[in-house]
């Protein structure tokens, strides 16, 4: 059998991940350079149309790896399916995009096949008969050329943006598509995927809040945060904090205001028990109205506060909540 290159494209819910085209471009370039045959595969359940889409590009053949167990994605099923397929085809080189999914199953696949992978490459070089794959080191300050010393199949993943997806060559005619039904025995898939969710980068966007109730060390204990929360709810505002509160884990880091947190400019900023170190002030001094409550009459927060309340926040805040509620009910 002639040497071949196999590109595994990635799909999600019936759509090809566009980074797949980049990997295909890489495959085309490598095929041109080595003279090896380029083939592609897409794995899933009901992926024939996706395989046809890939077949429109310049490839020798496209395989649709079909199994009901491949949908939804699990690392066990993908590793098992691809191991079977790759073992039977014995390509020289297997190329994949360096996606989260690939990072998830490729180490397992490659270990199961007792081969090596060169991951997150940004390019390749041909040095005589030797293929070298370029990886970044030291956060991109150095590039290392890495070669395989083990037997094929060789696995390579390419970094997002390493090749241009829009440069993928179309084929002169549609390539043949072969559907390969993959048998995955019961008990192989041990993962049970739950609902897919996106981890919110910023759960709260304090910069959009019109009213912010912010707590500092003066709140004393974690359980007292509840008081500030009630005030925020009564006012219809967001809860925020100075660094020590988030540092102690009493509120998540995305609620931190100041030089190492967020910078906000709400209409109203209520500072409860915040002394007002410059590191905090730079994050909120743009607020239109600042009300500060603090026991220490010399707290620097009072220098920028529009309303300064010297006193114990535990005496002041509860009646405040009541008054706000009353006023709102009246209005």
């Amino acid at each position, binding site marked *: 059998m002639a040497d071949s290159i196999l590109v595994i494209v990635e799909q999600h819910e019936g759509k090809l991940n566009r980074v797949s085209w980049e990997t295909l471009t890489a495959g085309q370039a490598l095929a041109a350079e080595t003279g090896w045959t380029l083939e592609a595969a897409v794995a899933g359940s009901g992926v024939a149309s996706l395989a046809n889409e890939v077949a429109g590009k310049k490839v020798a053949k496209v395989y649709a790896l079909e199994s009901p167990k491949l949908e939804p994605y699990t690392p066990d099923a993908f590793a098992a399916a691809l191991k079977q397929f790759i073992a039977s085809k014995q390509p020289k080189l297997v190329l994949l995009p360096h996606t989260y999914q690939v990072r998830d199953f490729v180490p397992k696949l490659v270990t199961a096949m007792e081969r090596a992978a060169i991951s997150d490459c940004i390019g390749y070089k041909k040095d005589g008969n030797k293929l070298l794959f370029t990886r970044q080191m030291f*956060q991109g300050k*150095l590039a290392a050329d890495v070669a395989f010393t083990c037997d094929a199949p060789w696995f390579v993943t390419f970094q997002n943006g390493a090749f241009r997806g829009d440069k993928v060559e179309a084929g002169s005619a549609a390539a043949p598509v072969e559907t390969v039904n993959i048998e995955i025995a019961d008990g192989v898939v041990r993962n049970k995927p739950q609902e897919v969710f996106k981890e919110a980068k910023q759960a709260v966007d304090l910069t959009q809040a019109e009213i912010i109730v912010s707590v500092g060390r003066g709140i004393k204990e974690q359980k007292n945060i509840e008081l500030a929360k009630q005030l925020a709810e009564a006012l219809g505002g967001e809860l925020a904090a100075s660094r020590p509160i988030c540092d102690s884990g009493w509120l998540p*880091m995305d609620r931190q205001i100041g030089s*190492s947190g967020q910078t906000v400019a709400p209409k109203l900023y209520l500072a409860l028990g915040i002394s007002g170190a*410059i590191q905090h002030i730079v994050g909120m001094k743009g607020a239109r109205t600042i009300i500060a409550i603090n026991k220490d009459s010399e707290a620097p927060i009072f220098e920028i506060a529009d309303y300064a309340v010297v006193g114990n926040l535990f005496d002041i805040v509860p009646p405040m909540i009541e008054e706000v509620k009353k006023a709102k009910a009246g209005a």
Partner: protein
Amino acid sequence: MLVFRKPLPNIERPQMPADVVIVGGGPAGMACALRLSQLIDQHNANHPDSQLSKENIYVLEKAREMGQHCLSGALLDPRSMRELLPGFEKEAPLDAEVTKEAVYFLTEKSKFKFPITPPPLRDHGNYVISLNRFVKWLGGKVEETGITIFTGFAGSELILDDDRVTGVRTDDKGVDKHNQPKSNFEPGYDLQAKVVILAEGTRGSLTKQLIARFALDRDRNPQTYGQGIKELWEVPAGRIAPGEVIYTMGWPLTTKEYGGAWIYGGKDNVVSLGFVVGLDYPDPRLDPQRVLQEFKKHPLVARLLERGKMIRYGAKSLPYGGWWSIPPLAGNGWMILGDSAGFLNSQRLKGIHLAIKSGMLAAETAFEALKKGDFSAATLSDFQRRVESSWIKDELWKVRNFHQGFEHGFWRGMINAGLQQFTGGRGLRARYPSTAGYQHLKKLGELPADGGDEAHFLGPAKGDGKLTFDKLTDLYHSGTKHEEDQPAHLVIHDTDVCNTRCIKEFGNPCQNFCPANVYEMVDDATQPNAKRISLNPSNCVHCKTCDIADPYQIITWVPPEGGGGPNYDGM
């Protein structure tokens, strides 16, 4: 619960071979890299058939950008720079040549000018510089040679094989507060080096590992240190000329503390001023940042700064111990340079020129080793010989007993200094001994509760927001930033000592000597009326004072995730 940084165990790390790894891109490290490149270029030009490569020479620098963590007064004695880059004055960022100098002894309200400037403090011919700008420039020169500087990478551990140093491990990136890898985790690299050159600055963390491992402090005087606190001010025109230099002794310190201040006139009405306090003071309540604030209230200084604006702040420790404290400089696979070794003239308070010279001499040694292909102690100890036959030794030998003479206060120090001046540095005996600075700290019970003569600089500064500042406000002007979600890099080996012993015996002096409010005693929620130590590692300005001055010696400063730290500009 405090979790401390340590390299993650049981993970596979990328291995990278290297010829020379220089840890630290300050004046010593940069000069070393530049000199090494010069020697290799010369060699390659003369020996077309035995070429040496610069490709595997690397500089590790923990700051995000070159020079960002460098801080000094600074006055540059140009001697070594003229050797390294003849004519450097034409292109280096120099603020001004020293034109005028004065030394004052201060009392609370008045000043006495020394009728003549004592010879060690004569600075004509030296330059006022910003060290971090200077190093940035020097680093640019290094990069032009093709040597790679890895900014944002710290040396976190030495790799040792029996009695040899075989490499450096860089910091793990993307580790959270609980020492768990985050989604962006990247393990540190193992740089397998033929020779590791430690140029980490004062109290280098790898240097400390090396000294402990090979007992390099045996038969040496303990290293002694000072802490310099610096502010940069913009003042109305005409207050001080560029190149004008003022030194002061006395107020606000008493005769029990060692230290003094500098005021340098720079370009564009910028004034560098700072105070160096010897970290061998007796009262644990002393706060060096407060000392600087009190100093600024003196009429001499207050008049200079009136209606001016403080623009930058920073702090750094410096090694005072001198010749008798310098450890062996080389061994199998390693050399130590600059402030890490203790190359500082404590009488002139200058070390940049010595750091540069030591870097050059180490480069010459490394070059010979590269040619021979031998990096054992036999070859590298030539660095020791080169230092001892250079002007570094001449300069440090004359002041070998200087700082030790002050261990028993100002007046005995002045007498000793005078005697040494007439005896070529000998004074009353060949080698004055010294004690580690922290051993001078007295317990609270032995000190007057009201602070006595020292009361005016004990405890935190309040600050008026114009002339004087509280510590957090000062700190803000250092531009310090760290990734918050990482383990504490101030490794306290036993926090029980802080919470139960130190609190009673010394009153937790870490809260006072730390110039960045990293250490705090907070209410312990688990026990009524008890306090516990809490850390704000993201405030740290990397001065290493805690590692030096802690009375129980249970704090180890290790580098935080590379890229974090102060952002000095013009300092």
